[in-house]
């Protein structure tokens, strides 16, 4: 009788050991590297962090400047042919698509036509150029100095062009020469001359 009880006790101890083992195992499996498990893994887009490193990356970014310029100012939905504004070099506005319209109608609190035609696209270009000019100097970028100079020059052209457009239309405008990485509301207008010094003459 005693023997049987002992056997039973032994068996259940074994079971208990196994159970404890299983519990420990499960806890172990579960509590592995938390940071690794929670790592953010984009699967259908590239993040900016890995997209400004090689020559091809920067070349594609430069291509985008041309694309935006065409898309915003020349495509059918970029309704206003903006270059007409700055070629005229005055504050006179006209709608070069020959649609009889008075721009004055659009300058009111309910319309963002002018904003969407010039201000927003110009700053879009400036941003894209700033991204290139900023990121090309970062550590780990795999391009030669000649290529760097070339890309910077090309980006500066679009940036200068955009500021010229803005300055001719608005006069003093905020001058942003770095990639905006966090939201800001504290922009201030800088004198037109500053843009000539800072943007055109660098």
């Amino acid at each position, binding site marked *: 009788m005693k023997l049987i009880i002992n056997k039973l006790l032994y068996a259940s101890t074994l079971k208990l050991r196994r159970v404890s083992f299983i519990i420990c195992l499960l806890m172990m499996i579960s509590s592995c590297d938390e940071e690794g498990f929670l790592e953010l893994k984009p699967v259908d887009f590239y993040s900016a962090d890995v997209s400004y490193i090689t020559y091809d*990356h920067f070349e594609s970014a430069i291509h985008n400047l041309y694309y935006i310029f065409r898309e915003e100012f020349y495509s059918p939905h970029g309704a206003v042919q903006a270059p007409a504004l700055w070629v005229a070099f005055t504050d006179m506005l006209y709608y070069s698509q020959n649609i009889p319209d008075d721009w004055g109608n659009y300058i009111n609190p309910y319309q963002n036509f002018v904003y969407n035609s010039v201000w927003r696209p110009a700053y879009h270009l400036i941003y894209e150029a700033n991204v290139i000019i900023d990121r090309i100097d970062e550590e780990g970028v795999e391009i030669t100095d000649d290529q760097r100079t070339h890309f910077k020059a090309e980006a500066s052209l679009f940036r200068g062009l955009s500021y010229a457009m803005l300055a001719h239309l608005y006069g003093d405008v905020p001058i942003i020469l770095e990639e905006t990485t966090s939201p800001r509301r504290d922009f201030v207008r800088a004198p037109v001359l500053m843009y000539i010094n800072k943007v055109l003459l660098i």
Partner: protein
Amino acid sequence: MKLLLCFILFSVLNVSGSIFSQSTTFDLAVNGKTVKEVFKDIESQSQYRFLYNDDFPGLNRLVTLSSYNLTINEALDELFEGANLTYRELENNLIVITPAELFLQDGHKVVGIITDAGGDPLPGANVIIEGTTIGAVTNVDGNYSIVTDPNNTLVFSFIGYESQRIPINGRSEINITLSPTIEQLDEVIAIGYGTQRRRDLTGSVIQADQEMIQDHYGTSVVQSLHGTVPGLNIGQINQAGQEPSLSIRGQTSLAGVGAPLIVVDDVIFRGNLIDLNPHDIESINVLKDASSVAIYGSQAANGVVMITTMRSGREEGITLDYNSSYSFDSPAHSIGLESPEEYLARIRNYDVFDSRTAESGYLEPKPDYDISQLLRTTEQIEAYRNNNPTDWANVVLNERMYSHNHNLSFSNRSENSRYYVSLGYTDVVGYAVNDEYSRWNARFNLDNSITDWFDIGVQSFMTTSDYSGESAHSQAYILPPFAPAFREDGSYTTNPRGVGADINPYYTVYETDDLNKRLNLFGNLYANISVPFIEGLSFRTNYSTNYRKSDRHYFRPWDSNFQGSGQKREGLFNDWSQDNILNYLNTFGRVHRVDLTLGYGREKREYSYSRAYSEIFSRHELGYNRLQIGSADMHAVESGGWVETSLYNFARFFYGYDNKYLLTGTIRRDGFSGFSEENKFGLFPSIATAWTITEEDFMNINWLNFLKIRVSYGSSGNRTIGRYDIVAKLDGGYRIIDGDKRSLYAHGITSMASPNLKWETTTGYNFGFDFVLLDNRIEGSIDYYNNNTTDLLYEVDIPGISRFEVFPDNLGKIHNQGLEINANSINVSTEDFQWTSSFTFSRNRNELKELLGFDTTGDGKEDDLVAEGLFIGESIDAIYTYVNTGNLWQLDDYFEDRIPSYGDYGTYILEDLNGDGEITPDDRTIIGYSSPSYRFSVGNRFKYKNWSLYVFLNSVQGGSNYYLGLDDLSAMNDFGGTMELNRTWATNLDVWLPENPNATYQRQGVHNVPAQFRQTRHTSRSFIRLQDLRLSYNFDREFLTRVNLNSLRVYFHGSNLFTWTDWPGWDPETGDRINMYGRPITKSYSFGVDIKF
């Protein structure tokens, strides 16, 4: 305890019911036995049974007897000689032993009858003088008699019933009705990663009416709960297979998810709720307050709905259950279409200056006015001339709406295992042609005890659902009656309306090959180990995986100028989750109840989709199954996906002292891949206490059976942010061409990183009562909650100088508070007739406390976001617009030039609030709120013999300025365009005309006022609805045995039978106003049968 056993024994004997002969004699020859042992001897020799309390003095006295041929009376007299005991003989050979003093004592005699709630006497119930062991037992008629001091207190008790303490106060007759013990309070319910007895709950947790769930009405699981759980708001549906919207308590988020977390069998459920078969559901609990949901941390701010599926039939053994119903459906309320005659009369009035004579004041029609000039195409003019209208409603709407479903389940419960297998089929045909839904459900649940300490099991299901078919219900309104469907040669016209690229619905509805199918596969494996040697310690681990596939293919032969277009789109969700839960539950020293739960788990979710598309097919037969034969330059491919991971740890501690003082504390730590590095983990603590006052000795109020006060405080989160919002995204493509005509790849940043994004946090307290009153006739709960949600995810406007115009950030604060009442009562309960009622009430108010925090106006108060309709210190559902006087500008005003620029003749007159003589945006104000003021529902259930009738009224009320809906014809008006001429309007509209100056609605063809001045009109959506009427009949057991069935029930269920409302649109609850795109909700008459073998 012994006494209890005696009572059980008694009840067994009571059934046997035979009388043992008085003349039977015994031989008593005992030497030094106790009195109790002698009783046993007698019991072994006869059918007499003795009922006594172990504590009675003298029962353990040793006796020595040797007497023969004694009758029972003689034997007992001899036995009790010298002892202070006496006996009384009841029917059924039961002999009750009582202390002799009870019957001998001089004193106050109290008599009475003890009955149950139904009035039936309770034989064998115990009456004891408080503080003593002295007592009496009722006889078969429930009568008792006891002699005691008139100032004593009597305690009445019976097994399975609640004890009652009644002071005698000199009375000589006390009749008592005992109520059954509130077993519900000991019922164990799911609270997330574990269970708890209802009496131990410290948070606001409501269990949905079991009977409603068992009636499993509706296509979706939650439809049968519509309106029955206060605080759980379930939306109306108006399409076949539509998922009702769900929300718990108020809106806590501006941009984020508003739906509660769904947990099925303790696993977070990511699919569509409609994939669950209502017949497979055992119970549904709703966790509402911040403390009870805190166990689900960063996903729980909108509450949690816990669903438990069937484990096996409710009865032991094998059960085969077949349920079938067929429902005749119709629109509960439709916006009628105008007839061709009405249409012609209306468009004739479109421009009264043109169609009527000036001399008559534009009241008389011009005799020579030609209406055909208003029609758009020559085909339309021809159809008008030939008076050959087309009934488009007949083309796009179903003549007959119906639904039917069949369910077969098989379950078995044995000692070591139980399983449940079911198969279900549902088919719904809705309002519009191709508005159809069909679903197959299969489920297999198994629980198996391998040893007494090791259980394993599985919950699994497969659902396929089919939403195929392109429907075009709104075409009934969009197409005018004289737009011809057929050409003279009998072929379909292509563009009957003559507008844009509108295609004849005969093509779009009937010739499109449209496939929209979903598949849901779910499996959850678990193991449960009750750790041996440590009482109360158990460990549970489970692994669940879920595949959900959705296919959306179509081939439209009529698209691309009848050359055809096709798409094949497949999406696949794959989730897995793993939970490990360690639980320790024990009671120490009978009063200290401890329940500790620790958990750790993780989850991974993946989604991927691909889409192939092509246009211009020279042959159409293969459709979307051979897209590559489409024109090569029209081929398009697209693919995408996402991955997210999350993990959690939690600890929950419960301590209960003597069922009186209860305390629960939880803390959960949540990590989510979508949270930024700085905020990778969130911590969500909560604490709750409760005090069951009725367990206190001083709380002895007759009418109050149970009262518990709960107070809880805690915080929970709403993940809500996008999976990838924290990183800067890039997008690219071949966007430009170089001099050699090569495509060049271009890319740029499309969103700014928001490196601090995190969850929205809802913190609040809940104060509640649970009560049971009046002999358990009324039970219910009242809850008040007060929550603040902070760190709202909001797309903040930023200057375009940054390139991006919005930036997602966590800021602001919304406040929600509300009251919920839930009560159930037993009004009448007799053997043949029962009447029970339920009542719910809920009310919620929200307020936007702060958002961006800017004060540019310098008034010391944060600026309102007028354009977004958000006002600080106001409800987020505020309606901000001009005050509509309800009057209209008339022709006289027009001719006398009194109409300001915002209006025209036949348009609403706006109120000049600031009295500056003109209407400017400053004249706008908050005219009311779109959210409900309060909701209530009343349910009554009557049972008479085999009949059962259930009537349920549901209501949402707005009071004077809540629950407002836009009620104007702006959806049908074209604001200066002429589309009204080319549409079918609703019939019988009270629209302005010169002869109808005081109309409800503005005239058709209202001029193009700038949007910011657009006149609106709002009407209350308040309604009361006879939502459910259910009559069922259960066949007699007698009949069932004859036909070899376990149970047979036939029923009729009517839903949405009648609605009392002033809302003129499609439906007040869906909020669809009079427009072309609305759909009616369904009124149904459903007949069903439920057979159990």
